[in-house]
């Protein structure tokens, strides 16, 4: 990321390996120091060309993803040079340092970094203590970029280490104020944002020139020694949800059925009412009609209706006809007797 390109391209022109007579220089002789040996025209051309190259070597390009800092004898003169072609005084006066300001850098806190060569596990490094004195294993990845190039370059000895330490301390503090459940479930996002904001504030106090892009809790797991108990809580939660769902299912089944049943009752009652009223009206109409006719010849009709009814009734039943003037011997009624008529 840091590209120390001291603009000294033209500097070589001072050296002895330059110039038209380089091949003829004798070893271990100081003759070449005698600039007077050069002819006047050659000397001027030599020095002029060198001077032009030296001046031109101050040109430098800052590419689109970079910003540059220019220092003069070590002191910052241009704290932030934006992309483009620029000029700085040549070596050894000015020095240009280019930085890829937008490039995000990663720092892993807790847990084992995925890019460690040895792949060692660091169980202690990942342990955090929650407010309710539970131990949690966390792996947090923070990403940062350059906010102020000059500060980033010159204010701290090891930006990555400083950023890591600040984020870690903020993280430890936030975790220590929460319960294990909130860390594992609901408040992950809130913790991430609080840590990012808190760490950014501290880094600003240090003038580290760092912009924290994100703090991301990649994994938060209970220690292996208690992992199964935590899993059981999760399954208990699932169990609870399941039985609640089942009950909900029961309710969803029972209530519509009850509504159907109620509707059925109401419809049946309506039907019953209609039937009763219709029947009554029918019967009444019939009766009214018949009664009107009956009224015209009550005696005859009465007798006819009576006779018709008797015709219908009497064939079905056992009959004993007794003389109204004689006594009746009830012993004649015996079980199993078929219908019989006795004079």
């Amino acid at each position: 990321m840091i590209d120390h390109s001291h603009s000294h391209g033209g500097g070589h022109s001072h050296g002895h390996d330059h110039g038209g007579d380089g091949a003829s220089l004798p070893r271990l002789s100081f003759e070449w120091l005698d600039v007077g040996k050069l002819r006047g025209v050659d000397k001027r051309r030599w020095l002029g060309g060198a001077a032009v190259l030296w001046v031109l070597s101050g040109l430098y390009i800052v590419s689109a993803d970079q910003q540059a800092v220019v220092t003069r004898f070590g002191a910052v003169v241009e704290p932030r040079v934006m992309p483009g072609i620029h000029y700085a005084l040549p070596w050894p006066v000015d020095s240009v340092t280019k930085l890829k300001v937008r490039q995000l850098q990663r720092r892993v806190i807790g847990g084992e970094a995925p890019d460690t060569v040895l792949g060692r596990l660091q169980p202690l490094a990942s342990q955090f203590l929650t407010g309710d004195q539970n131990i949690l294993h966390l792996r947090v990845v923070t990403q940062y970029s350059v906010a102020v190039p000059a500060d980033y370059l010159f204010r701290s000895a090891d930006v990555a280490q400083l950023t890591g330490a600040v984020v870690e301390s903020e993280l430890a503090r936030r975790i220590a104020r929460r319960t294990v459940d909130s860390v594992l479930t609901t408040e992950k996002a809130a913790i991430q944002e609080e840590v990012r904001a808190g760490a950014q504030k501290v880094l600003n106090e240090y003038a580290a020139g760092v912009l924290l892009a994100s703090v991301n809790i990649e994994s938060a797991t209970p220690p292996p020694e208690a992992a199964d108990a935590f899993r059981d809580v999760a399954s208990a939660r699932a169990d609870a949800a399941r039985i609640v769902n089942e009950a909900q299912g029961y309710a969803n089944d029972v209530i519509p059925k009850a509504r159907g049943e109620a509707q059925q009752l109401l419809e049946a009652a309506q039907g019953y009412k209609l039937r009763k009223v219709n029947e009554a009206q029918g019967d009444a109409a019939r009766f009214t009609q018949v009664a009107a006719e009956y009224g015209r010849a009550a005696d005859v009709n009465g007798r006819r209706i009576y006779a018709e009814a008797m015709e219908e009734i009497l064939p079905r039943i056992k009959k004993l006809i007794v003389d109204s003037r004689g006594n009746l011997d009830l012993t004649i009624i015996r079980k199993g007797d078929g219908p019989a008529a006795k004079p």
Partner: protein
Amino acid sequence: MIPERYQRYVPAAGFVVGLLLMWQTFYAVRETEFVLVTQFGRPVYTVTSAGLHAKWFFQNATFFDKRLRVYNPRPSEFLTRDKKNLVIESYVAWRIEDPKRFVETVGDPVAAEMRLHDIVWSGLSASLGTHDLEAIISPNVEAVKAGSMLDALASTTGRSALAEYGIRVVDVRIKRLNLPEQNKQSVYARMRAERERIARQYRAEGEEQALSIRADADRQRDEIVSAAYKEAEKTKGEGDAEATRVYSQAYSKNPRFYKLLRTLESYKKIFDDKTTAILSSDSELLKVLMRGESAQ
């Protein structure tokens, strides 16, 4: 005097000597550095501003890194006021502030860190000894005073360190809180017990909720069905009443005929094949049977 055959090297040699003198006189101080100028080993003055500076060629410039450094003391165990052990990992952000003092007392950063370790350790130890564990870790935000406690620690530590060693402690922060290794097993046991309790609670609460949902459903069902029953019976009653009204209205126009019809209707239903009727020959129906036409 210089022999003639070397005369022509004089300008070049002078140039070289001039360069060496310039090299010894001018020096660039970077933004990241302090320079302590010493004369025959004795500190003369300190340069704090970056840029090109000059000194006498017989003086020496020693460069010191003035950038902020992070020092991580080893994790150590501390005792809180309520006699609980805590393993604390901290970091110290520090930098050299007074190079003269620094070079006189500690000399190099490694030695400085050893001093810092002692200062921070005793500071933390004293500070934690006046706080309960609750004040450092607790889900209760009000109870946690760790932040203010450490700010105080940083400022006191900073002052003492500066005065003695020419360094400035910018910040001391707790990076990690942990419990001692020998307490871990009991902590895990407690965590397990706590989880088991929570799991039981979840299951019981689920059961509770399920039961109440079921009971509520049953209640709703009974409510719906009984309300419908009430309504249905009312409707039926209305039907019956209406029917009765219609009947009575019609029948009361000719009660005698109704009586006849209804009586005959009843007979039809009352008498079946198990009925034995004893009929008097005097009866209306049989009069003719017995006595012929005259009976009319």
